């Protein structure tokens, strides 16, 4: 599988995502945000970090990076896109995912291991897990509180588009403890926690490694 990890100015988890994809046996490349071509990629990853210094709002400026046209094209073609942390924020700002990620309710930056529960295995990134499975993934963010209007939240729940949820309370005040969601086509996934930083027991958890297996990609259209 060809995995393109986009590097924005201020990204800082792109190497982790790149390594996680390589470790899973993929042909992974880092792509500078000025690139306008993602045709070679099967899967696109928008990594964590602080693109453009989080100025204005996290992801607000990165969403206008030249590469984002190609990301939107890739997404609209039904091909898999994963946004992790800042990548999730960028996908929301780009309207490729609904809702927004705002300042943590307690105002403090939170960096710790959390437990998340898989709520949907029907995405290219969670197909290696089973629904109800609990995983240890780290979080590291100041703006991770997922918000959307009630109608949108109800729709996400009804359509099984809440991909994972925090267990034992959210670390950021996210509505309905939402840690990750997907789009209507289920090919675009945003996650606030960092599975790419949980790929080896040596660093505290290997629960993120199966996410990069991507065995479901190519099996069907998108999923």
């Amino acid at each position, binding site marked *: 599988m060809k995995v393109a990890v986009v590097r924005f100015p201020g990204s800082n988890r792109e190497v982790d995502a790149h390594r996680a994809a390589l470790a899973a046996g993929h042909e992974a490349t880092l792509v500078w945000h000025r690139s306008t071509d993602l045709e070679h990629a099967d899967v696109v990853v928008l990594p964590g970090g602080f693109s453009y210094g989080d100025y*204005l*709002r996290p992801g*607000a*400026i990165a969403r*206008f990076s030249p590469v984002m046209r190609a990301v939107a094209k890739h997404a609209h073609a039904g091909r898999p896109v994963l946004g992790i942390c800042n990548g999730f924020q960028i996908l*929301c*700002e780009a309207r490729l995912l*609904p*809702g*927004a990620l*705002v*300042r*943590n*309710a*307690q*105002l403090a930056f939170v960096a710790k291991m959390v437990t998340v529960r898989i709520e949907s295995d029907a995405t290219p990134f969670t197909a290696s897990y089973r629904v109800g499975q609990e995983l240890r993934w780290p979080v590291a963010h100041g703006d991770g509180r997922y*918000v*959307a*209007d009630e109608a949108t939240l109800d729709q996400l729940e009804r359509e099984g588009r809440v991909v994972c949820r925090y267990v034992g309370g959210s670390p950021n*005040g996210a509505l309905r403890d939402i840690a990750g969601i997907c789009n209507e086509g289920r090919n675009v996934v945003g996650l606030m926690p960092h599975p790419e930083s949980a790929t080896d027991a040596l660093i505290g958890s290997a629960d993120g490694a199966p996410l990069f297996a991507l065995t479901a990609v190519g099996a069907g259209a998108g999923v």
Partner: protein
Amino acid sequence: MTRYVGRVRVMPRQGLLDPQGTAVEHALDALGFHQVARVRVGRTLEIALEGGSASEARVKLEEMCDKLIANPVTEDYSIDAVDVAP
């Protein structure tokens, strides 16, 4: 072209939890300002631009807000003033 300065105010949407506002509210209360009922924290942008008229400048400012400056999911904006630059 006349130069204008637009003042744009962006506030967290009503009803949305504003943790910064709550923190400032509590700090003011701790300082003895018990009369404070509620605080909300937003941001103001001053944007200098060139335009044929103040109303044209206002239209452009609205476009800027819709496209980039405010997130319609979480924020409301208002254009408080469009003044001729000194």
